[in-house]
């Protein structure tokens, strides 16, 4: 019995291969986008966790200063639980060498396996180092053991071996382990030159990258939701179309429970097939996108992520789980209906549509409530999570409002229509709305995400470029190796350039958190170009007299101290804030004094870096002259143009992944629309045929169908634009401020929005093309069949 019934049930898919394709592809796309994003996230998280753990500096206080291993021994012998870290990039090597002491390093760190005594001996002897797969390591290093657990780009060596590789007697810092007793002798007595530095609150990399990953996860969920719309439509249709078959099977004696079981088994099979395909797809997508993500994260945040993927069970299991949940949601409803519906219930499309009126009302109310919640969260919420809650409420609210709004618009159209045909077009479109609304909601979300992210990126790009132009006002930047060379350099440059502007800086604590203090001369370069968000009157004149300081937006936002307030600048003392400047791409606080004030506050910082003002045409010749004359360190000479190019490159990479996901989401939404229209196309034949019989050509009917798809897409796009702009606003004014500490102005891009709307219409036209073409070319005999079937 089972076999015969199953055969009958499965025969449906043989007769409707397109539906089968829709179902499997929809499920695979949904699962694929979800798992892909999960894979990227999981890999990147794993990588930072490793990086943080290997460095052991994510949350530990540290001791900094001019340190050697003798200082380490001094502290250890005084009872301080410290571990030394040496961290540097050897000349001519791209990888970073991290020297650790295996005996005192934190127990939770990444773990090179030294179980073998020979390995341990070799490690301590400097004959063995560890690095992640794919990390470029020059041949000058000893044996490199590849370990997947180590952060990419890092070579882990014993501290003594690392000193040898880096050619130094120094160590960079000591981490203070948590087991420190409270009766230890004071650090100042033991190592007078050293200072204790507390970890930055929240962990800077974690906070920044979290936002990026939340962003990705949001996209993943969005894509999954869009995919679910497809699956839901396909499953619903398959159940609907097989209802006569179900009736027959039950009439032939198949128990309802058995039928339900068989259909549930079918759903499970689809989960496995679609899920597996999706996971392969997701893996492929992640593999393609991960290098970009890696570039983004390392470029923007300095977080190191390998370009390679590991097949972690968590994310592929989550892929299957999502596929299963998706099918359960989509198919469970149909199964439930099957169990409850009277066997002989006729298909009544209009009745269904009317029953949906209640649904539309509830959707409308739900959407309004969510939008109100979004506004409330935006106004009163704080923190990154609030930002994303606001985003979610906004998007979901807008999606829920779409069907009621479209329905109202179409009803209005039907009332206003003069001709019979146009009236029918509007009325019929409204009737189709329930079948299409999921796909249209998906389209709305995809379009809104595109508009929102596009607007954000556009705003970011414009602001960032403008800011770069202001901040990188000098034509050439040069850095000497030491003070002697700096003096020589100045003498050489004197008369060759319009101005030599020294740049001095030091790390210090700004309002209690690590930051940078700079000194810069009073010069028109800064007065004319420096991008001030907020300032007191006569800011430059007052700064020139040595009073006050300029601080960056991040510091101002974090401390709430804007112009006129006072801030604690550590080495730079307490000073009045004279102005706040924007400082994109820098997570740390920063403050600027005049050169004289800086030297007074922080003695013994040599002037080795200079910004040079020179006619742009003379830059190449001057750069060549300088590098020919002086032995400058790597990156010791940077011209403004390449610095800008580099900065913009980083910027472009940052949003490459977002852009790729945007396009993918739009594609999935397009597929959803196509699937819905195609299935509706076959279902709607009995409703179209009478209109044809009453004197409309197939061509006319087909064009009407096309027009319907275009009308719906156009209205959806019109609604997507305000949604997207709201999304962009939330990203720029809420999420960015929380995640990065700076706020960007929102720049409208009507041209871009118009182009996107056009794309939506094109996508709808493409999605409608197949069903329209089928209708156009449909043999009259097939249409007549609709009437013949009634016999």
């Amino acid at each position, binding site marked *: 019995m089972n076999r015969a019934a199953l055969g009958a049930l499965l025969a449906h898919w043989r007769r409707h291969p397109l539906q089968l394709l829709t179902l499997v592809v929809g499920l695979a796309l949904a699962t694929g986008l979800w798992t892909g994003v999960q894979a990227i996230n999981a890999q990147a998280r794993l990588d930072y966790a490793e990086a943080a753990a290997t460095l052991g500096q994510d949350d530990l206080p540290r001791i900094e200063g001019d340190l050697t291993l003798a200082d380490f021994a001094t502290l250890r012998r005084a009872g301080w639980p410290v571990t030394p870290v040496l961290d540097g990039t050897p000349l001519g090597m791209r990888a970073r060498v991290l020297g650790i002491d295996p005996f005192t390093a934190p127990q939770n760190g990444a773990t090179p396996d030294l179980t073998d005594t020979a390995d341990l001996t070799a490690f301590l002897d400097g004959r063995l180092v560890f690095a992640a797969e794919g990390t470029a390591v020059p041949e000058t290093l000893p044996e490199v053991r590849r370990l997947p657990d180590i952060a990419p780009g890092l070579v882990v060596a014993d501290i003594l071996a690392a000193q040898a590789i880096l050619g130094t007697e120094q160590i960079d810092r000591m981490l203070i382990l948590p087991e420190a007793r409270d009766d230890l002798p004071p650090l100042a007595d033991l190592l007078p030159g050293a200072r204790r530095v507390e970890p930055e609150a929240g962990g800077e990399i974690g906070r920044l990258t979290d936002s990026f990953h939340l962003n990705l996860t949001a996209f993943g969920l969005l894509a999954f939701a869009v995919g679910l719309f497809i699956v839901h439509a396909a499953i619903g249709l398959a159940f609907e179309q097989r209802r006569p078959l179900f009736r027959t099977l039950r009439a032939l004696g198949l128990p309802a429970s058995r039928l339900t079981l068989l259909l549930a088994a079918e759903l499970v099979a689809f989960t496995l097939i679609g899920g597996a395909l999706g996971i392969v797809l997701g893996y492929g997508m992640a593999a393609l996108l991960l290098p970009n993500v890696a570039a983004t994260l390392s470029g923007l945040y300095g977080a190191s992520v390998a370009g390679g993927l590991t097949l972690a069970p968590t994310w592929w299991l989550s892929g299957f789980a999502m596929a299963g949940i998706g099918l359960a949601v989509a198919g469970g409803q149909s199964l439930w209906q099957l169990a409850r519906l009277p066997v002989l219930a006729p298909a*009544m*499309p*209009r*009745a269904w*549509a*009317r029953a949906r009126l209640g649904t539309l009302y509830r959707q409308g109310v739900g959407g309004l409530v969510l939008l109100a919640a979004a506004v409330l969260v935006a106004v009163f919420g704080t923190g990154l999570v609030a930002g994303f809650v606001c985003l979610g409420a906004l998007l979901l609210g807008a999606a829920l409002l779409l069907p009621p709004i479209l329905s109202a618009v179409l009803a209005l159209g039907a009332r206003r229509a003069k*001709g*019979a*045909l146009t*009236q*029918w077009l509007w*009325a*019929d479109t*409204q*009737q189709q709305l329930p079948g299409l609304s999921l796909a249209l909601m998906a389209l709305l979300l995809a379009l809104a995400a595109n508009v929102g992210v596009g607007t954000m990126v556009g705003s970011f790009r414009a602001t960032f470029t403008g800011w770069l132009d202001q901040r990188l006002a000098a034509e050439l930047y040069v850095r000497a190796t030491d003070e002697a060379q700096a003096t020589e350099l100045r003498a050489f440059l004197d008369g060759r350039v319009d101005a030599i502007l020294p740049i001095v800086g030091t790390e210090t604590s700004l309002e209690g958190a690590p930051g940078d203090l700079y000194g810069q001369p009073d010069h028109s370069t800064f007065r004319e170009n420096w991008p001030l968000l907020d300032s007191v009157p006569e800011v430059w004149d007052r700064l020139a007299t040595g009073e006050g300081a300029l601080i960056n937006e991040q510091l101002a936002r974090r401390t709430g101290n804007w112009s006129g307030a006072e801030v604690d600048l550590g080495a730079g003392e307490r000073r009045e804030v004279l102005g706040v400047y924007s400082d994109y791409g820098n997570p740390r606080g920063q403050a600027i004094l005049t050169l004289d004030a800086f030297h007074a506050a922080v003695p013994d910082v040599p002037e080795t870096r200079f910004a040079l003002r020179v006619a742009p045409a003379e830059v190449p010749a001057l750069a060549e002259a300088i590098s020919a004359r002086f032995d400058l360190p790597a990156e010791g000479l940077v011209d403004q143009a390449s610095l800008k190019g580099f900065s913009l490159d980083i910027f472009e990479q940052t949003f490459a992944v977002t852009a790729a996901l945007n396009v993918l989401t739009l594609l999935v939404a397009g597929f959803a629309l196509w699937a819905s229209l195609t299935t509706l196309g076959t279902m709607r034949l*009995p*409703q179209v*045929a*009478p*209109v*044809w*019989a*009453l*004197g*409309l*050509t*197939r*061509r*006319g009917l087909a064009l009407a169908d096309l027009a319907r798809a275009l009308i719906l897409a156009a209205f959806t796009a019109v609604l997507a634009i305000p949604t997207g702009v709201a999304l962009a606003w939330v990203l720029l004014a809420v999420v960015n401020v929380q995640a990065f500490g700076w706020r960007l102005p929102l720049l409208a891009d009507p041209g871009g929005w118009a182009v996107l709307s056009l794309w939506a219409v094109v996508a709808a036209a493409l999605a409608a093309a197949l069903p329209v073409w089928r209708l156009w070319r449909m043999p*009259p*005999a097939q*249409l*007549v069949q609709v*009437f*013949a079937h*009634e*016999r």
Partner: protein
Amino acid sequence: MLLRTRNVDKSYETAGGRQPVLSDVSFDLAAGETLALTGESGSGKSTLLHLLAGLDTPDRGTIEVEGTDIAAQDDAGRARLRRGTVGLIFQQFNLIPSLDVRNNLTFHARLAGRDPGDVDALAGRLGLSDHLRRYPEQLSGGQQQRVAIGRTLLASPRLVLADEPTGNLDEATGDAMIALMREMVRETGAALLMVTHSARLAAQLDRRLHLRAGRLAEGAPA
């Protein structure tokens, strides 16, 4: 002659090869005339009706409506014919589910570019006055059938083709509908061709054609 049918053949491709449905069907129908088409199930009645309505084309032979050969028309020509000249009353009504009764009644007329005239009066005669704001699925089968009949009558076609139009009506209502159709055909000088199983109904019309296995025999079945 309003309708002139000559030597019409029609066959359909089936799994068992080409199956002839109509063979050498010829008959005429004059303006103002009413004709009953009877025959057993599968005798080709509906196929003939669909050919006459321009929904499909014959394999051979000619069908002229007001002197225009349907088979020679292109898609658009046949659509124009269906819209303006022919009125088709389906057995299963085939109303437009997204339009209310009023708009369904006027739909064909407006599609043909004609003034539907006094809708309310007709609705009264059809017993639909209270249902004009309703949608088809809110109506009973009989009500739907009356809407379908009304839709065709309001469109004032030259040739009314009806497929078991009273199948869902009780005898009295059915008779009233037939009377109404005959009256309107007479008033407008149109012709009526009605497919029916009922000898009683057939007897109410001017003439009767009987189809047996795709061939035509005038008069009552033997």
